[in-house]
């Protein structure tokens, strides 16, 4: 149900894009106004979110340690999984960001004949990695549209991406990986009863929106090629703040632009802003050195305590009888 609603929302958005060319002012809205609004929302939204996270204090040093601590000099430590310095903690974060190491740990547990058994479960890791790396490469490839001259790294990236040389224009590996990963993640969410139970409409929406973007983009490359020169003109003009409304843009381009703009507007206010967790989690980005270096809590506040003198006042007589030393200072008796 939630998945259907999310699909309906994405389809409605796509239809709105497809029909924009036929509505007066529709083309301007989708090719000029919306991209600017989206870009501003994305930039401001992310800045706001990151500021909100980064500005909140970290009262305690609470890394989750995944290996041997540094204690005695002769014990071999796990310097990355249990970082001892800020630099090692940064390396831990970098490895997580680049390789999704925690997902690589994943395993599946099942109960059979009253026993708990574990099996490997690497597909989630593989799909996530494929999704994110493909998105990055695709984003970099798109720089060819907004930058003139085309950045030096884009043509070799294109060549590498298409090295399979299947079809013309050559099939890009990242396109295939992206769609495959999205379909896997979607299928998994629907097929796994535990995930289906917990999934929100927004979980499906995010995946379907990305799928819509990927498919509309691929259609423009493989199925109904658009005039790349005019696309580049549009993009360059937008980037130069001298927007030129294209005369007869392809409906696919309008769909693609509308979906991408929706993503940009939606991203900062949704779970898609999860990158913050990778870089800012106090369980991951801090060194496990809280006994060696004192961590300061900016809001550390006084609390009532039961002092030794108060305690001794209650027990002094019994302590004396038991032969325990007492300070016996200022509590009369």
């Amino acid at each position, binding site marked *: 149900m939630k998945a259907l609603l999310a699909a309906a929302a994405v389809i409605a958005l796509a239809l709105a894009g497809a029909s924009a060319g036929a509505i007066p002012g529709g083309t301007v809205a989708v090719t000029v106004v919306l991209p600017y609004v989206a870009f501003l929302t994305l930039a401001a939204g992310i800045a706001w979110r990151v500021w909100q*996270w980064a500005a*909140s*204090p*970290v*009262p305690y040093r*609470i890394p*989750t*340690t995944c290996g*041997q*601590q540094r*204690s*005695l000099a*002769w*014990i071999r430590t*796990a310097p990355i*999984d249990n970082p001892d310095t800020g630099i090692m903690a940064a390396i831990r974060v970098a490895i997580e960001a680049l390789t999704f190491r*925690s997902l690589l*740990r*994943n*395993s599946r*547990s*099942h*109960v059979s004949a009253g026993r*708990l058994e*574990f099996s490997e479960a690497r597909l*989630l890791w593989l799909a*996530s990695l494929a999704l994110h790396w493909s998105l990055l490469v695709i984003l970099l490839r798109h720089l060819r549209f907004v930058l003139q001259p085309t950045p030096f790294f884009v043509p070799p990236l294109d060549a590498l991406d298409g090295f399979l040389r299947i079809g013309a224009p050559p099939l890009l590996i990242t396109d295939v990986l992206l769609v495959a990963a999205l379909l896997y993640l979607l299928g998994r969410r629907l097929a*796994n009863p*535990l*995930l289906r*139970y*917990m*999934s929100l409409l*927004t*979980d499906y929406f995010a995946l379907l929106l990305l799928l819509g973007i990927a498919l509309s983009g691929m259609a423009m490359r493989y199925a109904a090629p658009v005039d790349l020169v005019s696309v580049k003109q549009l993009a360059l003009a937008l980037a130069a703040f001298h927007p030129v409304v294209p005369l007869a843009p392809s409906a696919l381009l309008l769909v693609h632009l509308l979906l991408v703009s929706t993503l940009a507007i939606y991203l900062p*206010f949704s*779970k898609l*802003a*999860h990158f*913050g*967790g*990778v870089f800012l*989690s*106090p*369980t991951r980005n801090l060194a*496990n050195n*809280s*006994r*060696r270096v*004192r961590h300061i809590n900016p*809001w550390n506040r006084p609390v009532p*305590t*039961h002092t*030794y003198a108060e305690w001794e006042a209650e*027990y002094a007589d*019994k*302590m004396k009888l*038991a*032969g*325990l030393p007492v300070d016996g200072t200022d509590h009369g008796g």
Partner: protein
Amino acid sequence: MADKPAIDIELKAPKGDWRDARVEFRKGTFSNASPPKDLVHLGLPNPRKWQPTDLDWQLPPDWKRILLEGMKDRLARYRSFRLFMDVCVRCGACADKCHFYLGSGDPKNMPFARAELIRSVYRRYFTLSGRLFGSLAGARELTEDVVKEWFYYFYQCTECRRCSIYCPFGIDTAEITMIVRELLSLIGVSTHWITEPAGNCYRVGNHLGIAPHAFKDSLEFARDELRDITGLDIEIPINRKGAEVLFVMPSADYFATPHYYTLLGYMMLFHEIGLDFTVSAYASEGGNFGLFHSNDLMKRLNAKIYAEAKRLGVKWILGGECGHMWRVLHQYMDTMNGPADFLEMPVSPVTGTRFENAASTKMVHVCEFTADLLYHGKIKLDPSRNDEYVVTYHDSCNPARGMGLLEEPRYVLRRACNHFHEMPAKTIREYTFCCGSGAGLGNDENMEMRLRGGFPRANAVRHVREEHGVNLLACICAIDKATLPTLMDYWVPGVQVAGVHELLGNALVMTGEKQRATNLRGEPLAKEEVHA
């Protein structure tokens, strides 16, 4: 346990909508409420007589405002809380990593589901999308049913952090649980098994409420017993000013079994190396049930340790075997109640090793201390005295995932025992499974849920019992020692539970000791000639 409940472990597909907050408080799966006297003792709000099974929990009239303001306040004070409310993508990698989910099959015990119980409320009151789109955006009203649901499920989390290591964002359910429990405490919703020990610890000095003279009796008893076992007079100094080291242990060590044998082990070791130490009757608790209740209560209980170290004029502090105690000592104490600038860099008086890793907090784990002694050959062990035991080692959650104390206890065990076997790799070290009774859940009324939560751990023990004939589960946690015996009796009969320093004490060759006839439990040792 009088009668064994039959527990089927089954992971079924969930039914219904998780946003339906109604909970059935089934006997055996929850902890009793704090009686009014506990809250009065500690000056906590809304003391009253109630139980979770009551229809009316007698919450204060403005309970909703208190909770929402409490959330707002904590969102501003803890980056962890705000981030963990925002960044979960519900990928489900954590789902089957929780021992309570694996043991109960209740989908709300999947870590990401547990977090959604409060995240949905966060969305409704603290995010734009939640306010605008309500349930479409995964938002949920805060109702009394939600409060009851929070109580049920956040007291079905042992703050073990296992889910966190699988999370791509390091979302730590322990952190969320700690904050929700703190929120609940603002409206007087807490459990007796936590507030009573905390109150005892605050006023009397330890969780068990043992007054100083009884504390002394208990240690005198240990002295007598040590005389019988070793023939040596092993004194345990109390509140002695000017000692070099203050030794702090969980109170169960001197008042419960099998903890008590660990106490004997420490004392034999300290005697053998001539450690200049004292224990304290005022700070006679290393454990800290405040951790399971609220930040402030944790700090109030923990404050005694530094205060006492200062009053006694010791140079540094040594801490005994206890899991959550070390979470507090390692990750919170110095920040909360430091700086410990009145203490000195801990240096082993026997080996001269400087414990640089404790340079600021000035507190050393007894396994670090002992491993250093063994490495430098300063003590002599006869591991054959532990030959009746085939040992495996349970990493306690907090020393494993909140510290990384993995090799030190193993080093001691391998020297002290001839027969040692590890459990499967996915169940030890950072992957260790909780005993199922930590974070204040180890009470009798919660027995069914404890046995369910402890099932994954027991399952791994059963594996090494069948494979290698393991009959002893060693650990370094007082809650483990209190609750694993019950767990073993239920799932893996024939496996005993012991502290690392009990096994060390058995093996320790002491100057001037008599020929040992028994181990520390008073059981006769195997015949000498077998090992000749």
